């Protein structure tokens, strides 16, 4: 092996640092035994580096490799393919470490490191993560640099500087490419499931489910309105509806599920579905939503979405559906109306929305029958129901546990404490028992306005459940929220204010709960950060949704020629700047004495200035002859110069003196006419 291709010792250190940096983000993703293996490999390599141990026997290496493969195959049962693939990359990466002698071995590791940095974005996409990845890139590139430098050069920080400079120079080009490169759709269908679990609404709702969500401060989605925001007590975000009750939990009926399946397979319809007539006083709101991944097919929209992207489908209950589960943050524009919606229901639909288990909750049914007898119309019935809730019930995040059977009876007549889910499900049961079609709606209520950028942030703890009933007199669906009468503050205040005394509220995010982030200054800070985060989501993470509009605005029409020009012209400009900075001829820095001599040369002109090969002493001798009036000065200069250059202990003022004399001489030289040294002096 030629020594030229052996790995330098300084690159070993960088290599180990790179490996640890690249693997750190995967700690919570890949199985932990892989990490133990990685640390062992790094440790072993360190011992080899220090000369204590030798490389492991090839039998050991093959054995470990087979074990790792077996382990990863076993992992496939409860992890996603993506995680196992990344695990495989990491395993290859650390095992290569134990058989690394040469340049090429290091290259394999570093190229895989680049790949792993890219793959980490499948799991994390936050701003800190992006910055961390940039740092990792710089370190890995620095390591690549050490591989290619000569053995004798062991300056440990130099590669890092070089790498940082490279990235600074590459950054403008990258921005151009990022903006211009056309975003095409996926080349083939990929499994987006990266094994993460989501908090959020699920497709069945038992009364306790919503209160579970209040433990989390995770963001559900963000919305930015074009016009003024809807009033706080009208911000009902529809997620999905539950139309079937099994005595315990509310679910989506098979009919509804089948309908949404059919809808997503259907051809795109005009973006605006024909809804029934809307109540005349309703207002239309236009807004954009950035929705966090839920792993589900539904998409959130304000009350009744009217206009929505072409890839969405709207089904009977006005919820929005998409064909693929949401595995990555997405962005879409909607237009919604708030208010009652007119819709003629068929008999079958009316039956469907009256469905109840044949038995159970007998006291609740009796109560409904009693109210029907007392009230003449539906308005009266709902009013009585609401006043019933308002009178005796208490709103709490930690209601007592309800038994399996007749849970609604128990809630209505015994515990009388509950959360929105309890009220909504009890309300629908009462309405249906009274023969009024109704359904439970799951979604979010409210949202925190960020004054910095005007974006409404809706968090998991704002999850909410309410109900809708169909009034046969005006053939319209009406929203009814029993919570609004039990806890009117829930509609006025943010959930954060309302629940702040409940022990279980935000139990999973202590930082938010303990007021750490609620102090005025910190709150402002947090809002600013969230505003930046929102822009990050809109402009970077969802750039593919905005690119075409942006390019259209810049370029007029998007053609291949235009795009190429947009890449080539700024690219060429940036590269020329880099080239100029790299190739600029840089002369050696001159000290004061050399500068003074150069000044003297300038005023002497081409005939008299110092000739190549002439020593300074000879130069001044010649000048003394040429300028007899300045002989004394030139002799002083000559002496001065010798002292500056050769005296053992230099008088620090001498260079200044030297300079001063030259400055004094220059105007005199310009006035005097030199005597040609070649001519004999007369």
């Amino acid at each position, binding site marked *: 092996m*030629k020594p*030229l*291709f052996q790995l330098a010792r300084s690159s070993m250190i960088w290599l180990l640092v790179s490996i640890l940096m690249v693997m750190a983000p995967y700690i919570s993703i890949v199985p932990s035994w892989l990490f133990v293996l990685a640390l062992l490999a790094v440790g072993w390599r360190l011992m080899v580096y220090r000369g204590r141990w030798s490389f492991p026997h090839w039998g050991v290496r093959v054995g470990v490799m087979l074990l790792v493969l077996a382990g990863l195959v076993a992992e496939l049962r409860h992890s996603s393919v993506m995680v196992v693939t990344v695990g495989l990359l990491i395993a290859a990466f650390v095992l290569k470490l134990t058989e690394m002698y040469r*340049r090429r071995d290091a*290259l394999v590791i570093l*190229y895989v490191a*680049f*790949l792993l940095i*890219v*793959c980490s*974005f*499948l799991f994390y*996409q936050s701003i800190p993560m*992006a910055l961390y*990845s*940039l740092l990792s*890139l710089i370190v890995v*590139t620095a390591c*690549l*640099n050490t*591989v*290619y*430098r*000569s053995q*004798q*050069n062991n300056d440990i920080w130099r590669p890092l500087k*070089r790498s940082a400079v*490279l*990235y600074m*120079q*590459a*950054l403008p*080009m*990258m921005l151009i*490419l*990022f903006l211009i*490169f056309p*975003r*095409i*759709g*996926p*080349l*083939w269908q*990929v499994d987006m499931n990266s094994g993460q679990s989501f908090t959020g609404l699920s497709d069945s709702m038992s009364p306790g489910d919503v209160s579970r969500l209040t433990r989390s401060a995770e963001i559900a989605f963000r919305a930015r309105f074009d016009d003024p925001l809807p009033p706080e007590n009208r911000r009902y975000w529809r997620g999905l509806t539950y139309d079937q009750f099994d005595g315990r939990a509310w679910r989506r009926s098979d009919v509804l599920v089948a309908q949404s399946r059919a809808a997503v397979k259907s051809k795109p319809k005009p973006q605006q579905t024909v809804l029934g007539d809307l109540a005349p006083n309703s207002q239309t709101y236009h807004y954009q939503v950035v929705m966090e991944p839920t792993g589900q097919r539904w998409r959130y929209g304000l009350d009744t979405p009217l206009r929505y992207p072409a890839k969405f489908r709207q089904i009977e209950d006005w919820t929005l559906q998409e064909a693929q589960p949401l595995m*990555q943050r997405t962005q879409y524009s909607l237009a919604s109306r708030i208010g009652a919606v007119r819709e003629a229901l068929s008999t079958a639909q009316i039956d469907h929305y009256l469905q109840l288990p044949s038995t159970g909750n007998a006291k609740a049914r009796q109560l409904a029958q009693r109210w029907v007898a007392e009230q003449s119309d539906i308005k009266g019935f709902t009013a009585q129901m609401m006043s019933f809730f308002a009178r005796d019930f208490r709103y709490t995040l930690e209601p007592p546990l309800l038994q399996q059977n007749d849970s609604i009876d128990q809630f209505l007549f015994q515990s009388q404490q509950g959360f929105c889910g309890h009220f909504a499900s009890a309300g629908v049961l009462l309405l249906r028992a009274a023969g009024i079609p109704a359904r439970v709606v799951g979604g979010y209520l409210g949202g925190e306005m960020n004054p910095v950028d005007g974006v409404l942030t809706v968090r998991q703890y704002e999850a909410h459940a309410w109900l809708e009933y169909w009034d046969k007199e005006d053939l319209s669906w009406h929203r009814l929220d029993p919570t609004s009468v039990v806890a009117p503050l829930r509609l006025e205040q943010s959930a954060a204010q309302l629940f702040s005394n409940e022990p279980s509220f935000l139990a999973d995010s202590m930082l938010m709960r303990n007021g750490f982030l609620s102090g005025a200054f910190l709150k402002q800070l947090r809002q600013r950060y969230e505003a930046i985060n929102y822009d990050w989501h809109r402009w*970077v*993470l969802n*750039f*593919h949704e905005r690119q075409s509009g942006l390019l259209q605005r810049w370029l007029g029409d998007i053609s291949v020629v235009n795009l190429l020009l947009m890449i080539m012209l700024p*690219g060429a400009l940036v*590269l020329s700047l*880099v*080239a100029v900075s*790299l*190739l600029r*001829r*840089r*002369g*050696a*820095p001159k000290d004061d004495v050399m500068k003074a001599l150069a000044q003297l040369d300038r005023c002497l002109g081409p005939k008299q200035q110092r000739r190549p090969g002439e020593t300074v002493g000879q130069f001044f001798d010649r000048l003394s002859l040429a300028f007899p009036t300045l002989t004394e000065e030139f002799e002083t200069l000559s002496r001065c110069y010798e002292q500056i250059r050769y005296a053992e202990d230099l008088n620090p003022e001498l260079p200044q003196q030297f300079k001063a004399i030259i400055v004094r001489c220059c105007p005199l030289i310009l006035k005097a006419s030199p005597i040609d040294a070649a001519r004999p002096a007369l």
Partner: protein
Amino acid sequence: MIVSIRQRLADAAYEWSLKRSPRLKKLTLSQRRIYIVPSRSGFLFLLLLLVMLVLAINFQNNLMFAVTFLLASLFVVTILHTYANLSGLTIQFLRGHPCFAGEQAAFDLLLTPQGQRQYESIQLRLGQESGSAVDLLDDQPVSLTLYQTPPRRGMFQAGPLLIETYYPLGLFRAWTWVQVDLTTPVYPRPVKGGQLSDLNSVGSGDQSSTDQSERPGGEEFNGLVNYQPGMSLKRVAWKHYARGQGMHAKEYVELSDHHRWLSWALWPELSPEARLSRLTWWLLQLHHGDEAYGLDIPGCHIPPNRGEAHRLKILAALACFGLDGVSRESDLAPSAKPASQVGVR
């Protein structure tokens, strides 16, 4: 097939590069001379970028796009850095050191950076020899010695000089082949054998013309000379010094006709090259002895003398015997061309 195409391309680049390079004592590398293409690991890197791009497209992940584009820009910027790592470098060919056939001839070069620019990990090599890497970090010229094995004795001209660099990231290889204006004599390989003892009896027609002469460094005392600093203390006439007559040195001369001839006619049974080798070996032996020696080969007659200059003169005569041209590396095996230089080995 790809390998053969690559080989042919490398050969063509080599030929073309040499054709464009005049033989110079000093040259500065510029864009007219520097060639740059992606190295093998550079192509691998492009493949990696492609994989990343496909990942980014399929996952619609804009951060993946960002990193892919960042690395692509890095790739482009590296072209400039690799190129800048050669351009402006001035190479001076200083001298060649003679050697015996079969040994490596050494050639001294001086590399001067341009202004304050820094150059790292520049690999240089002559012909097919293994090279050496050099850094120029503190704007000082760096001298280095490269070695090349001459194919045979005679005047040897250093083969083309390859200057290449993969710095900073190994993604590109910048290189140039330069014709080197350095020659050095290559002496015949010394081979032990034969006897020289009967040499003097061999009738050398010149023996009579070489009279007894005095040569310094002999064994006969000749007188005293004034001591000069640097003279051997062994030769100081201490007795005179002790008598207070000043410091003198004793001078000895050689009063003899003891000189030997390295003659072509000594071993008629040997082939010319073998004779030259044997003569060279005896020359080295005689040089360590006290006797004067001369060379007598066809076309060259050097009267007996002693000393380093004399030795070199005879060695040069032996080296060039029967040859008039200058040998080059390519004389060894005319078809041997440089192996493909692309990529990391």
